[in-house]
């Protein structure tokens, strides 16, 4: 079980170090790569989280895997987490680090979900409009969900702007059911 307070402290420390050395983007990319590896590779995940594998073995293998691919700061973080038996916090640290990075860069992660793949021009238009709406730089993530039927849905932080056919139909359905029950 991850403890976000712990993850936040590690992320803040790492962010400060990365900022001093001007490697914030690199560290962010390293952490994202490691998190993706953990997400997509169950054997790597079970190896890293296994209590049967000794710390020395984990350190040795992680160094072999990542020492020439990640920054020194990231490698140092990995060694520290293993020494403190906090390797299960890696994914939470990555999320917290990303949040810190975005906060510092005054950026916002915006997810655009559409029923069909959007053309580049429309993507750009969406990002520009969202930048104006949020007043911050946008890190765009485009996804496709055919169940939305048509239109696009925008999500960032706690905000959701739903312009999909599915969303409008759901709203209409809810209003109709409410009216039916109210008049029953």
């Amino acid at each position, binding site marked *: 079980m991850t403890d976000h307070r712990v993850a936040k402290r590690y992320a803040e420390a790492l962010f400060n170090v990365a900022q001093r050395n001007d490697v914030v983007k690199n560290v962010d990319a390293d952490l994202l790569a490691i998190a993706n590896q953990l997400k997509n590779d169950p054997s790597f995940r079970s190896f890293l989280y296994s209590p049967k594998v000794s710390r020395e073995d984990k350190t040795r293998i992680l160094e072999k895997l990542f020492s020439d691919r990640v920054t020194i700061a990231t490698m140092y973080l990995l060694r520290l987490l293993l020494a403190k038996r906090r390797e299960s916090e890696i994914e939470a640290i990555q999320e917290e680090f990303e949040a810190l990075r975005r906060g510092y860069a005054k950026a916002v992660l915006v997810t655009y979900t559409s029923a069909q793949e959007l053309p580049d021009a429309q993507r750009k238009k969406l990002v520009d409009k969202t930048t104006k709406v949020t*007043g911050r730089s946008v890190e765009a993530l485009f996804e496709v969900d055919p169940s939305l039927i048509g*239109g696009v849905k925008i999500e960032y932080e706690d905000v959701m702007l739903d312009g999909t056919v*599915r969303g409008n139909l759901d709203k209409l359905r809810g209003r109709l059911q409410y009216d039916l029950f109210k008049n029953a």
Partner: protein
Amino acid sequence: MSHLDHPKTPVRASRRRHLIRGAANVGVLGRYIVAGFVLIGVGVACKGQAWTQPELLKPMGLDLAITITNMGIFLAFAGVINVFYYTPFKESMDARNHELEATFTEAENLKKEMAELRTSYEARLAATEAEAREQIQAQIREAQHLRQTLMAEAAARADDLLRKAELETEAEKQRVMGELRSHVVDLTFNATERLIGEKLDSATNRRLVEQFIDNMAVPSGS
């Protein structure tokens, strides 16, 4: 009550009474015997004298001396019979009569006692019957009251159950109607979605996205 009849010594008293009676009998016997022997003596002494055979009695062959002697013998025998037969027989009869009288008296007493007991028993029986009737009547009244109470409770409960059943039926009806409406809405919207999905092409989708982008509200001052 004499000292002879003392209840503490009934055997001794009886014996004494027997002895006294025996002595009295001996006295009576003696008198009879003495009188008998006197007459026998007179008869024997007068035997052969002329006056013992008067002319009047000669045709019948009677002799007064012999007659007097016979009378003495009869008297002596009468005493013996009186003492040894008649008196005990009479006493026995008297005792028997007395015993019978006592028995009858006792029977009468018992009869009276039984009659009293019967009267008392009948009175008690009547009282008991009356009490039993009263108790039965009270039990019947109580049972009727209980029956009425139970029937009233049962009726109230039945009414309550009926009311609850009606409410439940109404609630269930409303629930089913709601489900039905919801189902109808779902079916309608599913059909609509399918229809829109079939009809919606890329151009329409792009137009929808464009409209959405145009309608996105930009905060003032941005």
